[in-house]
């Protein structure tokens, strides 16, 4: 299995923010979802891949090429969708296409027209009159009309209503019928990732908490619930973080099997959603800072 994207030990510091030793691999033919709270470092990672922000340490390889040394060769094969599309608002979609198309050798008008029809986009309407959903669809149509092998999207579903959001995710899944394509997209909406991603990379506070297949995440993580009498210093250690109240506790485990051995049938085990996983990891982080 070859990797479309390989990031190792990537670091970058801003005032008050550190991206710390980020490593991840995205195998060709799969979708990776990048989740994390706002300000976790998702956009910085994406900007570094695109070489829009300079890294300070580490390496980034796209299609097994260095992202800086072979930037031009790489970018021809990337479709990039920004979170806030920077369009020339006074243009219409047709004019915008005419501006962008000449930059790509592989630009394909048939694909573009097909996407415009599929997304129901008006070709002659000024872009500044587009709704948020239409703007997003327009930037996707622009980004995907040159047969890109690697699609990078920063918050592609933000500000979209649930119906359009579904359409978008279905559309991404459709692209993946071609096993030579790969997609990296970031979102702070966990249901997007749960629906569309094959790999989940969770970033918090500038670090990768985990980067795993969705199945691995679903099988390893679980919520453990039980009476407070089950909790002592030892059993607590097996949980990532615990929230306990007057009537019992709830904690997150990253190793369901081990927890079952420790708590036995006195505790209840529930599926952990990505939201649960994020919440408890965040709680752990907060506890560590105290």
């Amino acid at each position, binding site marked *: 299995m070859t990797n479309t994207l390989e990031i190792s030990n990537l670091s970058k510091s801003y005032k008050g923010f550190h991206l710390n030793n980020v490593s991840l691999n995205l195998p060709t*033919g*799969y979708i990776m979802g990048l989740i994390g709270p706002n300000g976790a470092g998702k956009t910085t990672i994406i900007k570094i891949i695109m070489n829009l922000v300079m890294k300070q340490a580490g390496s980034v390889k796209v299609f097994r090429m260095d992202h800086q040394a072979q930037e031009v060769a790489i970018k021809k094969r990337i479709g990039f969708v920004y979170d806030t599309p920077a369009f020339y608002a006074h243009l219409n979609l047709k004019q915008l296409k005419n501006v962008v198309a000449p930059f790509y050798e592989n630009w394909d008008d048939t694909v573009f027209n097909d996407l415009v029809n599929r997304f129901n986009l008006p070709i002659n309407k000024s872009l500044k009159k587009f709704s948020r959903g239409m703007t997003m669809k327009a930037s996707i149509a622009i980004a995907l009309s040159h047969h890109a092998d690697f699609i990078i999207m920063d918050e592609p579903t933000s500000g979209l209503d649930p119906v359009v959001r579904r359409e978008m995710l*279905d559309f991404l*899944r*459709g692209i*993946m*019928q071609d*096993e030579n394509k790969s997609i990296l997209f970031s979102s702070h909406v966990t249901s997007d990732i749960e*629906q569309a*991603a*094959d790999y989940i990379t969770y970033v918090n506070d500038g670090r990768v908490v985990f980067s795993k*297949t*969705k*199945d691995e995440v*679903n*099988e390893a993580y679980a919520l453990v619930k039980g009476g407070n009498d089950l909790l002592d210093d030892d059993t607590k250690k097996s949980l990532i973080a615990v929230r306990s109240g007057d009537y019992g506790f709830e904690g997150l485990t990253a190793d369901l099997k081990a927890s079952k051995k420790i708590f036995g049938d006195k505790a209840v085990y529930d*599926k952990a959603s990505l939201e649960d996983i994020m919440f408890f990891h965040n709680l752990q982080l907060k506890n560590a800072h105290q």
Partner: protein
Amino acid sequence: MKIIISNSSPEPIYEQIAKQIKSQIIAGDLEEGAALPSIRKLAQELHISVITTKRAYEELEKEGFIDTVAGKGTFVAIQNKEMLREKKMKSIEDQMTDMVSEAQKMGISLEELQEMLLILYSSDD
């Protein structure tokens, strides 16, 4: 082929898929040599990860229910009906072994057990 996935089931999704395909093969609803959808097609249809469908197919392949021919696709394995039946019999036998040992632990006699079986067998359906 019919596959229905439950997200609230504690059973992993790949197992749900493998099980359902398996029982359709055993029941003869999926015939020998029939083509199965590609892992990517199936993932798209079921709205699940390619990794999950891949794992389900790998499971089925390991157990000899399906064959993947590189560049051609995935097909229901040509197997002998006798062997399928034998596999099913073996699984029933295993379950009966568990049942018998549970019954013995609880001091249930063979007669009682037979009676229970008789009731269940004739009432089922």
